């Protein structure tokens, strides 16, 4: 039977975005051509259309950016009173809001995420981070880090492709508020929103060199984090690269914050609010196509309700709308790159090979672009790869448990420790579980909710250091909240 209520396409207009054919590097307040780098193309992962040519920073470019940041720190940004710094940061926040539609469309074009997410999550949260930390800039003496906490100096910041603008905001806003200057390296596949942010920083009259944005691939990032002119390195990305960076920085005395992978348990007890738990499971693993470090990729469901939860999940997944990321009704967009798609495919294949049952709703994948359907694995046991490795895609592994202790044991049985979710109507159980879960973030009766005032970060192979909140200041100031 043909569906009765067919939603007509409702695409957000691309006209609001003014793409240039090519972009230079943003160094010392100007867009400049690379000295010893090259050019690469960035494409729309939902159509494989080339969006723009972007510069790749070489060693000399990295050096130039770090020097510009050092000069800006010593001459302008470091000596500037916090109340003056905050004015610039507030201005950036306001311009982000004013240009929010443009940023959202650009983010969806370059990343492949649905416009409803870039519009309602990425961009508003990015602006919220600048607003939040702008408020801290003249109140650092009250942050619990001593009477006059000093900035570290120059921060090298390498960010991933899953939340390009939001991760730039998470890195830049606290660094700027605390008086540091920055060299930011966006991911190779998603440079465009950071370059638009560079234009916004110009529009806000941010002094030259305070923020430098250099695009490029992994070698640019490696050159940046190894640069001896930095005082601080922060990295968000894969655990593998995080380990390389930590080895590289060992013994240098440079401060490091790492926000790496995860394999979060989303634990559903039999007394959970089931409809909302199903929504939370869906949001936990299919938000941003599961390309989220804190995704709830392991569903731990109590045995008495396992069958009905899986049935309800399947029914719900049938209503997900996969397709054009710019369509306002799209729930599931494109996978960011062919590399990532290959990785998801390989891990999903391992799940089948190792005996788990694979299920996806009936949905047609577009012919061009990188797509993977929302996927459930049932019959998953802890010894399978899909129960242990981070898939970073729209793939949920369903496991069961019998008692709260077993849930804790299974949830903690991972090398990661970034996030976890608990679903129960029993308040005391939430507190009991939260105290025992080794995860930096524990959500109760919700999942994947973020706020600039709330610290975020991991345990063990999920990294160290916190971003967001008062704790996020510590990463960029001398002194520590503990001491």
């Amino acid at each position, binding site marked *: 039977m043909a569906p009765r*209520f*067919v939603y*007509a396409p*409702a695409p957000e207009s691309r006209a609001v975005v003014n793409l240039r054919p090519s972009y230079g590097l943003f160094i010392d307040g100007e867009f400049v051509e690379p000295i010893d780098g090259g050019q690469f193309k960035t494409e729309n992962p939902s159509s494989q259309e080339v969006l723009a040519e972007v510069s790749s920073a070489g060693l000399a470019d990295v050096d130039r950016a770090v020097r510009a940041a050092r000069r800006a720190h010593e001459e302008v940004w470091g000596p500037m009173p916090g109340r003056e710094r905050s004015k610039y940061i507030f201005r950036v926040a306001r311009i982000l809001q004013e240009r929010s539609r443009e940023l959202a469309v650009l983010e969806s074009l370059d990343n492949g995420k649905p416009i409803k997410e870039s519009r309602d999550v990425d961009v508003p949260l990015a602006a919220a981070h600048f607003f939040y930390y702008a408020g801290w800039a003249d109140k650092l003496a009250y942050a619990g880090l001593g009477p006059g906490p000093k900035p570290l100096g120059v921060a090298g910041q390498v960010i991933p492709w899953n939340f390009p603008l939001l991760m730039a905001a998470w890195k830049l806003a606290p660094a700027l508020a605390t008086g540091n200057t920055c060299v930011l390296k966006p991911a190779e596949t998603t440079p465009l929103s950071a370059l638009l942010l560079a234009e916004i920083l110009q529009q806000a009259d941010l002094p030259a060199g305070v923020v430098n944005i250099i695009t490029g691939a992994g070698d640019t990032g490696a050159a940046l984090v190894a640069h001896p002119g930095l005082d601080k390195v922060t990295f968000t990305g894969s655990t593998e690269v995080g380990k390389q960076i930590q080895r590289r920085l060992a013994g240098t005395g440079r401060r490091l914050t790492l926000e790496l992978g995860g394999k979060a348990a989303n634990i559903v007890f039999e*007394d959970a609010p089931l409809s*909302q738990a199903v*929504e939370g499971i869906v949001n936990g693993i299919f938000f941003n196509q599961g390309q989220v470090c804190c995704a709830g990729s392991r569903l731990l469901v109590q045995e008495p309700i396992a069958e009905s939860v899986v049935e309800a999940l399947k029914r719900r997944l049938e209503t997900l709308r996969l397709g054009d990321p710019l369509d306002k009704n799209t729930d599931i967009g494109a996978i960011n790159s062919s590399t990532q798609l290959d990785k998801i495919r390989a891990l999903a294949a391992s799940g089948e090979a190792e005996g788990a049952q694979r299920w996806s709703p009936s949905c047609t994948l577009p012919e061009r672009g990188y797509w993977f359907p929302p996927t459930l694995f049932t019959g998953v046991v802890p010894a399978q790869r899909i129960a242990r490795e981070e898939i970073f895609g729209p793939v949920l592994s369903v496991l069961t448990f019998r008692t709260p202790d077993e849930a804790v044991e299974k949830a903690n049985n991972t090398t990661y420790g970034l996030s976890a979710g608990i679903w129960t109507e029993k308040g005391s159980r939430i507190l009991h579980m939260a105290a025992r879960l080794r995860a930096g973030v524990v959500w109760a*009766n*919700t999942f994947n909710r973020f706020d600039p005032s709330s610290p975020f970060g991991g345990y063990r192979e999920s990294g160290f250091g916190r971003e967001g909140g008062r704790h996020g200041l510590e990463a960029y100031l001398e002194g520590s909240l503990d001491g």
Partner: protein
Amino acid sequence: MVDRGRDPARTGGVPPRGRNSGLADVARSEVSLRSFLLGLPGVDQVGAELRAAGLGARSIKAAAKLWAIDTAISMVDLTTLEGADTPGKVRALCGKARRPDPADPGVPPVAAICVYPDLVPFAKAALAGSPVKVASVATSFPSGRACLPVKLADVADAVAAGADEVDMVIDRGAFLAGHYGVVLEEVQAVKESCGPARLKVILETGELVTYDNVRRASWIAMVGGADFVKTSTGKVSPAATPPVALVMLEAVREFADVSGTAVGVKVAGGVRTTKDAIKYLVLVNEVAGEAWLEPDRFRIGASGLLNDLLMQRYKQRRGAYAGSQDFSVE
């Protein structure tokens, strides 16, 4: 307590609810009813409101909007429930119900007219030969504060006057006091008095306040024999809200899964714009499922909404807005 499931004759030939699903046992005693209701999964307020807001952000354009507008018109229960209602007012409304836009015969008639019991004969006469149903509120609407015989007399009066549908109110006082059996027995008794008339059970969710209560009251109504569960009388604020509708739509879907009987949902009060109406249709489509997208299973109780639907319909078809005087005001 009456076990309706045991005596098909008492339900006017309607198959007993949940004969093979154990639902008949739910109504067996106060204890079984209570443990069933308290055993339903809770509703998390934050999550339910987030989900409703998320569905409210769907963008319905072009052909989808045209379809939705006509569907919404066909689901309207055109309502007047004022102390000042007169036969003349009701006749005017019936004219509108049969043919909402005299300039455009393509506009479907609405689903029903909803009036007080004493005005049913006038509505019935005015709607003779049309597919538009006559619904009557009853059971000491809107407060429901009367003894059961008075409420049943009210129902009998409406049915005798020819009402095709009866909109009863539950005893919110009994519900909030935890006397779920009293609420259920009233629904069952009213259902019996309805005879062939279809029964809509008004929960008055604005007085039940919590979503847990909305879910439990929906189940009482459905077990009791409701053909529709309805949000509100329109006399209490808040009336219908998207999260309340979401909880009720989930309840009817679950009830259909368990019992095989599809119960409808009626949102009433506060639905004034086409945009609001379309948001409810999206909720129906994505929560209960597309089988609920018909006037037998979803209704919107409203008065002013109809002209806004007509105005948006005109705009969608002709590309320009009509003036406010281009549509009749009753």
